[in-house]
């Protein structure tokens, strides 16, 4: 029986993991005739199926004001408690409105009960679920205990209550095994591991008329070696390893292209990278001003490209992160059948590596072995194709929509007793 699913988060917009994965969940639910609706503080979802409540955004000024007063300290002013409760009560009202307006049957809190970027929203969802008993599936991407900036707080009471809550009508899903273990240990609740997925049942799109000129537009020549770092410029992305690798490849025509901007966590890291690239003699290009979530023209009339426009043109993808909650960029690169250099971050070691991918792997620093492997990937076309095929098959087996479909059906049946066959 088709049901209405209400996804709830601080933001459904852009290319962050929560926005991307929730859209995939909706796509898979749609295949089972379920309809998804969206509640968030910032939204790029269609107006007819979404409710945007600005106060729910983690960047809403009140949320920022609260966050400035609850992290990195152990006591909070009375006014902060007052505001958390006032905003939570208001947000709860808007959740009731959302559920009524769209006839929601199952609520899907997307990271909103996981990372306390908007504490009142977490409290609101918790109370809403406690009051209504509505079946809900919390999709946890990254818990607060995984981030050092949340390690000292003045809101342990609210964290215990709502991040995440323990409620009989609330099922939990996590994206990696470490999170599953920690959730069990800290909160005493079980969860289902639902990794991030990709539609490996479809082949990746190839360049069309719009994206045919990507190389030229971003300043690369036809015979340049296009090495793509498809991430934002923040320290945990380990971009200095990509620079070192390109340096050691000793290829004159190699260009290291960083697709996204700096700024989320300041510009010092970017400046360090520029300096390091200069010292290593690496040609590094920052093209964040030419990359957008959708194809469009910028204020100067220049074409903006999506990441998917870039991938087909890349010769190699670097992903030397020191930490990732999962690693969507890895799946994306494998989807486009690109050779990948990856650093062994903890989730990769525990969850992804055992699946049997063939990747150029670094373990904290660039070795001669990895340089040799990358050279072969770049120079030996047959080897490159063989590796790409292998990786695509492995990814399809473990990280395709079919995997997600099975998980969601199980969750829905467990929570509600509904099953696809009864529809």
């Amino acid at each position, binding site marked *: 029986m088709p049901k209405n699913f209400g996804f709830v988060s601080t933001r459904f917009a852009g290319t962050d993991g929560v926005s991307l994965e929730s859209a995939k969940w909706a796509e898979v639910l749609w295949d089972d005739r379920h309809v998804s609706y969206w509640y968030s503080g910032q939204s790029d979802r269609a107006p007819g199926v979404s409710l945007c409540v600005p106060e729910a955004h983690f960047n809403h000024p009140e949320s920022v004001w609260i966050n400035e007063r609850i992290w990195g300290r152990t006591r909070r002013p009375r006014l902060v408690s007052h505001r958390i409760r006032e905003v939570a009560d208001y947000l709860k009202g808007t959740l009731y409105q959302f559920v009524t307006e769209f006839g929601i049957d199952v609520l899907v809190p997307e990271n909103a009960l996981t990372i306390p970027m908007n504490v009142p929203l977490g409290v609101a969802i918790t109370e809403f679920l406690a009051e209504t008993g509505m079946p809900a599936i919390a999709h946890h991407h990254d818990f607060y205990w995984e981030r050092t900036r949340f390690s000292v707080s003045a809101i342990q009471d609210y964290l215990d209550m709502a991040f995440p809550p323990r409620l009989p009508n609330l099922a939990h899903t996590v994206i990696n095994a470490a999170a599953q273990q920690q959730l069990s240990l800290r909160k005493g609740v079980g969860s289902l591991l639902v990794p991030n997925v990709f539609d490996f049942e479809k082949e990746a799109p190839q360049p069309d008329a719009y994206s045919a000129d990507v190389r030229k537009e971003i300043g690369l020549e036809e015979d340049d070696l296009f090495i793509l770092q498809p991430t934002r410029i923040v320290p945990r992305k380990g971009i200095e390893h990509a620079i070192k690798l390109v340096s050691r490849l000793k290829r004159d025509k190699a260009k290291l292209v960083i697709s996204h901007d700096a700024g989320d966590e300041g510009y010092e890291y970017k400046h360090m990278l520029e300096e390091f690239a200069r010292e290593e003699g690496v040609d590094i290009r920052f093209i964040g001003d030419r990359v957008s979530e959708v194809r*469009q023209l910028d204020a100067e009339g220049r074409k903006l490209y999506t990441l998917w426009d870039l991938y087909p043109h890349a010769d190699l993808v670097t992903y030397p992160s020191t930490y990732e909650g999962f690693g969507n960029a890895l799946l994306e690169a494998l989807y486009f059948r690109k050779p990948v250099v990856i650093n062994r971050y903890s989730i990769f070691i525990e969850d992804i590596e055992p699946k049997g991918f063939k990747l150029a792997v670094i373990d904290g620093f660039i070795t001669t072995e990895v340089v040799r492997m990358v050279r072969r990937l770049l120079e030996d076309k047959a080897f490159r194709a063989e590796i790409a095929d292998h990786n695509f098959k492995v990814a399809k087996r473990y990280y395709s929509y079919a995997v997600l479909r099975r998980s969601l059906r199980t969750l829905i049946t467990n929570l509600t007793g509904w099953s696809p066959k009864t529809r």
Partner: protein
Amino acid sequence: MVTYLTQQQASRIEGRFRRLYGPRASSLLDRFFMLLGRYGVGVGPIEKMPLWDENDTVLITYADSIRQEGERPLVTLRRFCAEYLKGTIRTVHILPFYPWSSDDGFSVIDYRKVEPSYGHWDDVENLGKDFNLMFDLVLNHCSRKSAWFREFVTGVAPGRHYFHSMDTSLDLSKVVRPRQSPLLTKTATRNGNAWVWTTFSDDQVDLNWANPDVLFEFLDIFFLYLSKGCRIFRLDAVAFLWKSIGTDCLHLPETHEVVKLFRDVLEVVAPASILITETNVPHEENISYFGDGDEAHMVYNFTLPPLLLHALLRGSAAELTRWAGGLPNLPPGRTFFNFTASHDGVGVRPLQGILPDSERDWLAKEVSRRGGKVSLKSNSDGSTSPYELNISYVDALGDRKDEPLGTRRFLCSQAVALSLRGVPALYIHSLMGTGNDLDGLKRLGYNRAINRRKLDIGELTATLADLDSRENRIHTTLIKWIRRRGHHPAFHPDAPQEVMDLGPEFFALRRISLDRAETIFCLFNFTATEQALPFRKIDACLGVAGTCRDLISAQTMRTGPKRTLTLSPYQAVWLVYRSGS
């Protein structure tokens, strides 16, 4: 912790929501109730304090009008104000100090931040320790470079609904606006090209107030500014706020309703704070923003700067007297913001219906003759006419051949502004006696730059210390007058005013304190020659033997039936009568 909202306040605010947003009123009231207490605003019992008194004077300045190399301009401003103006000026109006992209601050990128090159919020709050603060609320439009507009372009809510995306086939010919740039500006968005409403320039995109999320953005900003110490809110270009296709989109009822709503909100959370509307339009339209005592507390007295300038240059106060005599007798709690110069030019549109066009054009020529610029607007018949005079008010009234005389004429104008019923406001370049900035005009290429000079604090303080300088004469005189004014309850903004017609050579008015214990006769010679006037003609009480004291010169003079008051060219006097006993 308690937030207070009486049943009466709640139903009034809900009524406003209903008139603006229809059936969503009830949920918007919930949202408003949630807002109470944000940033600590509206929590606990709210004290009701007087809005103003005779000590209220406002300084209008940019955050960086005074600079010192290596120091944040807001720190420099505070330093200067603390040393030169503390105890004299009560309120500092810092013109938009938020990150901006054009129009010297009025194209705001982020309303919640301080432009980093000016300083930090702490600097603003520190200034607020010594002075009341006045901020701009630029309601009508924001910068194309704002995050809101970026959301519009990328189709992300809530910003995707914050602007007017127009159908170009609509007839918008009735829309009234003060610019010649295209009303609609083409913008590439995620969903194709959109034509957005741009009243002032293509960089200043009009906000869609029919969307309650826009209102709540500004209510949040309003609360933030209150929490930072703002006491007076200037509602910039508010007349254009609401759009309704088929109308002139000027002063629409919904626009007034939004002003009333802000007033209601202030009554709930900060009843001692003040709303001032900035509507540079003909006088009657301008004062419509007083509403029925339920809109602005203050309106800019836009007619004063051009009419005063005209009267002093013509040497005849006849029109000024006629106009001032017809000003409404405002009840307490409503008053004029009496300024003569500001960061903008001297708008001449408010002269409409007061002076014939030929006199307006004469004034424009006089301004040009004094090195100023005249900004023109296009008329529907293809002709052009002046809409703004760009010149330093000091130079507009100056005299190249006889500087002391010109200085006296300028000071006379300021004495008038200090005397009229209302809160006087002095632009920094009037208070410092700064002349036209011809280099700035040339460098920046727009007319208003002529009166937006940036002053180096070292040079400024040296000039002010130079006893022979025009700047010293003007500054010290004005400071003295403002201080003296503050000791006299007859200058209370609510104290009645009676304009007297003593002939075109004079402008004269009587101010009477609220308790009627003090009467001050303010007389000004508007000519370049000495003028004599029998005391008895000023008022019967001055026609009997006794003395009166001129507060401006601190001189005592004898009055009586045969005694005469002699005023030197452009002299101003504030006479307080003392009986013969």
